Structure formats: C-alpha cells, structure tokens
C-alpha cells in the first residue's frame, strides 16, 4: 500500500513539475501578455494542483491535508484574479502588451 502511495506521489509531483517547466517556458517564449498569462496560470492551476495531490498521501493528518488543499485553492483564486486584472490592464493599454 505504501509503495503504491509513494509511486502516486512521485508520478503526480513529477507531472506537476513538468507543468511548471512548461509554464515557465511559455512565460519566456510566448509573444504577448495574454498568451504569457495563459502559460503562467496553467503552471499555477495544474502544476501546483498536481504537486498538492501528490503530497496528500505523505501527510500524517487530515488537518495537514486540508491545509495543503486550502493553499492550492487560495493560489487558484489569486491567480485567476491577478491574471484577469493584468489582462484588463494590457487591453486598455496601461501596460505594454
């Protein structure tokens, strides 16, 4: 059982790290603000989500698991808000796209 859980952790965290890598690559290579935001929020949503899901079985209390999930939800929320605001600012010409 613990072998299976460990395998799950390795798989999910590796996948999460892959999304972070891809998101960073997109942030550096994509041509304008909107596509870069798209790449960045993918990293936050999926990358962090997979890392959190992968780490869940390694926690030794429900309390700690809930905290991890809360962190993910908060990052999701702030990521969504910030990317909306940045995209709006870019569209109205407040920042260079």
């Amino acid at each position, binding site marked *: 059982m613990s072998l299976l859980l460990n395998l799950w952790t390795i798989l999910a965290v590796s996948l999460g790290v892959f999304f972070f890598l891809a998101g960073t690559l997109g942030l550096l290579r994509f041509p304008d603000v909107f596509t870069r935001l798209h790449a960045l929020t993918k990293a936050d949503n999926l990358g962090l989500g997979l890392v959190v899901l992968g780490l869940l079985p390694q926690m030794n209390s429900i309390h700690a698991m809930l905290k991890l999930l809360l962190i993910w939800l908060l990052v999701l929320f702030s990521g969504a808000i910030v990317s*909306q*605001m940045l995209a709006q600012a870019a569209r109205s010409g407040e920042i260079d796209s």
Partner: protein
Amino acid sequence: MTPSLALNLALALLLLGMAGWAVLVRSTQAAVIGFMVFGLLLTLAWARLDGLDVALTEAAIGGGLTGFLLLGAAVRLRSVEHRATLQAPGLATRILAALAAGSVTLLLAFAVLTLPSPAPSLAPAVAENIAMTQVGNPVTAVLLAFRALDTLLETLVLVLAMLGIWSLADDRVWGGRPGFAIAHDASGILHYAARILVPIGVVIGGYIFWIGADDPGGKFQGATLLAAMWLLLVLAGLRDAPRVSSQALRLWVVLGPLVFISVGLLGSWLAGSFLGYPQGYAKLMIVTVELALLPSLTLILGLLIMGAPKREIGR
C-alpha cells in the same frame, strides 16, 4: 551530491543571483521586484534552516510589506528617475562606493567565517527556562519574556515611523485621509476578490496570531496578514482610508504600546523588574500584550503603506 545539498546549493546561487540583479539592474521598479523575489527565496532558505518563525516574518514583512513600500517609492520616483540617471556620479565616486561596500561585505564574511565553533548560543538557557513563561514556542518566549524590551522598542519604532510618514503631509491636508488609490473598480474583479478573500484572510491572520504561543507564528505575521486584508478592502473601494485626525484611530494605534508599557510597569511593581512577569502569570501577561499589540500593529502596518495624508478633511 545528495539531493538536499543540491537543493541548498541551487537556493544559495539563486539568492546571490537575485541579490546581484536587484543591485545592478537599471530600472528602480525592476530592482524592487528583484528584491521581493529575493525575499521569497530567503523565506525558502529560512524554512530549510528550520527557522519557520523567521521564514514567516521574512515572507510577510521582508518580502511583502517592505517590497510594497519600496514599490510605492519607485512609482513616486518615476518622474525624476531619468533626471537622476543623468546626474550619475563620476567614475571615481562609483569606484570608491564599490570599494567601501565591498570591504564591508568582506569584513562581514570574515566575521561570520571566524565564529568560534560551536557558536556562542543562549539557546540552552532558553530551553532550560522556557517552562517559566508557560508558552511552547521558544521564539515567542524570547520575544515577549526574555527580550521583551527589544520587542517593546520595536513597536515604538513602528509608531515613530508612522508619525514620520504622516509628518510629510502638507499643512492644508493635515488630518485628512491618505491618498492611497481609491480605485473605482469598474470591472468589479478586485471588488469580488476583496469580498471573498478578506474573510478567509482574517481567519488565517487570527490563526497565525493565536498559534504563535506554541508553534511558529505570532502577532507580527498575523498583523501583516490583517493589514494586507485591510489594504485590499481599501484598494477595492469597499472602505475608504481613515482620517489621520480620527481619535479612535489614534487610540487603537497606541493601545498596544500602552498596554505593553503598563504590563512592564506592573512587572516592576509585582516582580521587581521592568517587564518582569510575576510567577504563574507569565502566559496571561504575554497573551494580554500580544492581544493588545495585534490591532495596533495591523493599523500601523496598513497606515505605513497608505502613506501621508493627501486629501483635506471632509473629502
């Protein structure tokens, strides 16, 4: 190379690189953003060293609050930045400055590297006497019992800093509200974010404050979070910044330091020394001081960011 050594090395290199970037980059704003990223990396470094209290403080105050203050300064200086770069000091001055800064760095490095091993430490003394304070977190015990005077002075410095910022106000607007962006958030996104995030943030801030007695956390980190939530409310236009002439505001600002000093005086009467705690009442006194400091620190940290009064009374 073991994985943890590789991680530590990568972190150290990133820290040095980020520090170099913050110093060398031309644009002030980019330098400030570099400094904030540096603060986040430093948080990771402290967490790797098991200094979770310091890590929390670094994330909240070092990276977050100070970064925000510097960002405000960078925006304010933008109009004169170009002129300032034209008046850049000559080569000789710059070489002298680099030499001076470099030798300070070398001296510091020398001091750190020649520390006796094991380094002199008061940690065993703290571990031996922590039971007397009735709190479980040694950092809280040091900050509010063994070195309470330092913490008292720290809070007084914050009050003075806030007064310093207020004193930059024009005579015309003295007593008015800070000019902190009252965004008319047409899209409503920030408005929405504030409504969802503030209740959650207040609970987390309270939790971090409360857990500080036995685990990493405490009033400074909690107050920074609460101040951030307050700023979010103001930014989203849900609440206006307060008038600095408000008596209630001033009362709350000095409440924490006043309670701290009163507890100190009570100590010199009951326990024989300023800030001494009578036997058996240490935890009660510590919690009283922390509870009184929390609202004061929240207001002071928020007001530091909001800046000097900019609008006349009544506006």
